[in-house]
């Protein structure tokens, strides 16, 4: 159970680790936008080069990245096939009786798959180098200007951080309840699907009831510690946006210019 905990972060002290998380998030978003400029596989080369460069800078062993990308690779291949077969323009490359493959289809599929793959690589790099707390904090700050429009940035971030705090606690509680039910003869691993789902009920009910109790006690404890919403609150974690952070964003824009130049 412990192995499935969210957002694998790999501790480190690289330039990417130390970047302002706001810059990392903004950079990822910019990177996504810039990739839309590509309309043929060759135009994605600058983006791929940028991604490689960033990953090398994190100094994280490649196997971590590969582990995270296994599932994504399957998705990417699937997407490629799907796009390829759906597009029916240009010259026919391969005249299969049922599924003729068109030149345009291969191109379109490759661009689509390439974009998704690179985006996923960069997103993985983000979670590998940024702790979940830094991420929630950065999201709160980036969305703060929208608070006036009714976006509850602070509340959402707090909820996320409490969830992060309690996920491991709930997992170990679930394990405990599971063992208790197993000691009474319950089984979670055999029988039909219906039977297995039924077996989960005595597991989930106590867990949910317990969670409500926790939530109530936590709310009281938070109030006792002076919590009264975001107003007048200061933050322990400070974020410093350095010139180097701006430079990274600038590099993303440069990558965009290269992509534009390579358009077909």
């Amino acid at each position, binding site marked *: 159970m412990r192995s499935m905990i969210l957002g694998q972060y790999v501790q480190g002290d690289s330039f990417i680790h130390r970047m302002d998380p706001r810059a990392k998030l903004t950079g990822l978003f910019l990177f996504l936008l810039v990739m839309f400029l590509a309309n043929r596989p060759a135009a994605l080369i600058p983006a791929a080069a940028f991604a490689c460069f960033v990953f090398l800078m994190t100094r994280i062993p490649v196997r971590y990245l590969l582990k995270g990308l296994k599932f994504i690779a399957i998705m990417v291949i699937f997407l490629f096939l799907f796009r390829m077969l759906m597009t029916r323009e240009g010259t026919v490359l391969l005249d299969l009786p049922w599924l003729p493959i068109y030149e345009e289809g291969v191109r379109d599929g490759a661009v689509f798959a390439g974009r998704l793959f690179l985006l996923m690589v960069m997103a993985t790099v983000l979670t590998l180098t940024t702790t979940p707390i830094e991420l929630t904090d950065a999201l709160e700050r980036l969305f703060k200007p929208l608070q006036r429009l009714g976006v509850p940035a602070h509340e959402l971030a707090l909820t996320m951080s409490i969830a*992060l705090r309690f996920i*491991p606690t709930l997992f170990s509680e679930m394990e405990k309840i599971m063992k208790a039910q197993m000691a009474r003869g319950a089984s979670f691993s055999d029988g039909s699907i219906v039977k297995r789902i039924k077996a989960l009920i005595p597991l989930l009910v106590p867990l949910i009831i317990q969670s409500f109790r926790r939530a109530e006690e936590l709310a*009281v*404890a938070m109030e*006792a*510690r002076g919590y009264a919403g975001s107003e007048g609150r*200061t933050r*322990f974690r400070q974020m410093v946006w350095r010139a180097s952070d701006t430079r990274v964003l600038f590099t993303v824009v440069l990558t965009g210019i290269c992509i534009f130049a390579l358009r077909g």
Partner: protein
Amino acid sequence: MAEETAVQVNNVTYRYAEGAPSVLSGLSLKVEQNEWVAITGHNGSGKSTLARLINGLLLPEHGDILVQGLNSASEDDKVHIRRKVGMVFQNPDNQIVAPTVQDDVAFGLENTGVDPQTMEKRVAWAIKAAGLAGLEHAEPHNLSGGQKQRVAIAGILALKPDILVLDEATSMLDPLGKKEVMSLAGRLHKEENVTVISITHDLEEVLRADRMIVMNQGVVTADGKPDDVFREKEILDRAGLEQPFSVRLREELARREVVIPENAVSEKAMVSALCRLKHKT
């Protein structure tokens, strides 16, 4: 300021809902600055309710509560009262908010709007004072019960409170955890002059106090030095309390005409009194 009464409860009545029986009925008590008071009494006698009234989480129906002269019912003073009174609750898991120790210790400071530079210093100081140095980045679910409760205390400590309320803060801990938490509270009491109000069923903990208050059905039924109160068997019986082992032992010995000095209440004092006895014979 220093000479002001820490907590003054004047004739307070409280009920959770209209028509429900009153949980506190005309309760009055006073806790002086830098005192260590233990509050005990059986389940449902209203101890936790009293604790919540003291820092303004609940407001009395009748009567009033003054914390260093500030009325808990005043909206403006509420913030100050929350800062002065720190509360530690029973369940160590359900009072830690943040995903790491240092973020949690900072939580109260963030709420009161302390500037980041001061905050950093205070957090580091509180973590060290609570004996948690080296665990700054630890995640709560990897800590022991005693460590979690000390994180909770550190979070309060960072706010430099005058009064610490422990609501059965050790009841879910193992003996080692209990010891850690109580010795931390003891140190704060001595070194930082914190007033301690400890709600507890643990008789050993009661014996550490300067004074003990026994509650029964929402009123105070006994109030005095633990040594004196524990001799009043009748009151204890009514409140569903047992005499501590040392007191029972002394009375049992007295019946056999072995005299142990009355001030030998704590386990340590008892042991040394018994040893002295052995030397004499």
